[in-house]
């Protein structure tokens, strides 16, 4: 399934009742060199748009919000030692975590890739 994006620059990609979450290429580029990712605890439940994780770059520290509600099923442990993976592929190997128990209905509050591109042009 395709990726959907939030105004805070997270992305989510659903596969059945599970979703993969990360920050957008645009966000990674804006942050610059990423030096630390605070991964969420496995089993943590979040509501859509609640704080899920945190990310730091050489320039700034920011929160990562949950693009959809769910329960953390897996985290990208590789980011502990190599947070630069987010710079190398924010929407691929730089994913943050997987959520389970998600529902497609919440995607209605997000943007698809084309709408997100339009949104970025307006920033």
């Amino acid at each position, binding site marked *: 399934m395709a990726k959907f994006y939030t105004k805070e620059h997270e992305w989510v990609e659903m596969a059945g009742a599970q979703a993969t979450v990360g920050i957008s290429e645009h966000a990674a580029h804006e942050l*610059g060199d990423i*030096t630390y990712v605070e991964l969420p605890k496995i089993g943590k439940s979040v509501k859509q748009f609640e704080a899920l994780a945190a990310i*730091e770059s*050489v*320039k700034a*520290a920011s929160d990562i919000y949950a693009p959809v509600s769910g329960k953390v099923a897996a985290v990208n442990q590789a980011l502990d030692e190599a*947070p630069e993976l987010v710079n190398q592929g924010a929407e691929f190997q730089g994913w943050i975590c997987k959520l389970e128990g998600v529902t497609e209905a919440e995607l209605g509050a997000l943007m698809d890739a084309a709408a997100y591109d339009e949104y970025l042009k307006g920033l």
Partner: protein
Amino acid sequence: MEELKATPLRTDHENLKALMAPFGGWLMPIQYSGIIAEHKWCRERAALFDICHMGEFIFKGDMEGVFTFSVSSIPVGRSRYGFLLNDVGGVIDDLIVFRLAEDEAMIVVNAATTDNDFAVIRSRLKNPAALTDISARTGKVDLQGPLSREIMVQHFGAAIQGIPFFKFIKTSILGSDAIVSRTGYTGELGYEIFLPADKVAELWRLLLQDPRVAPAGLGARDLLRLEMGYSLYGNDLDEQITPITAGLSTFVNMNKEFVGKAALEREVEQGSQRMKVAFKVDSRRAPRHFYQILLQDQEVGVVTSGAFSPMLSCGIGLGLVKPEAAALGTRLTIRHEKVEMEAQVVELPFYTGGSLRS
């Protein structure tokens, strides 16, 4: 808001696609390829920095009592780091004085403080007319990194080969009078080059043609200096912080008279209310300016500078704390809203592998 000043290299930075941002009243390059890549280049090869924003003054004659050290005691051909203080011992600026000749010196000051420094120094001179602000017509670039000596010698002559740390030579670069000084702000072997502002772009382009050289911005410069524990004016030093508080009494000569000395003597006698600490974070999390410092859940101070250190792979920082929190090995908590990190007071420099004295 006052309009930002631009250095003679502004279009060069724009052509290099630098990210530009305001710093000290100037529009400066923050990064080119990326802060961590530029930092690494400086630690391993040679990085070129545009430092034209800093201020330079020339003076002739007697300048005793103005700074925290005696200018006349600096041998000709050497430079010294120290402070311009207010009458309560606070730091108006940190600066370097270059003794150019028996009766002539150059003072190099921070960009944001240049105009005020000039006014303060003038007001303290017996002959104010002897002080000239040459900032506008003076350009400065820094070449810093383990390969900088061989590069400088190859381009500008063998006289550079033997310049020791904190010495300089007057020489000719691109047909103009220049000063090449073995100083810097990175912890690496390196040079600060002063030459006429209208020659800076030619020098910049010449050095960048060398494959061993890459440009580095103020982002990398800040990481490099913090890994050495060097103070940044405006963060770790200001008019409310004395050199004693900041742990920089080495750069103060208490046997000489200078403005602010009485306050420093009182502080030494009565003990400091706050002290500078250097600390390492247990994780990759970065402390940042104004984060709180706690000792056993009691607030004891504030972070003045902090970053993720690429060389140490952990967060590092400087702060001002109550004396009971300053002993080496003390465990501290750094807090900002819901962000919390554990840290330990360590010795400076954080990074000891640099080529500074090689």
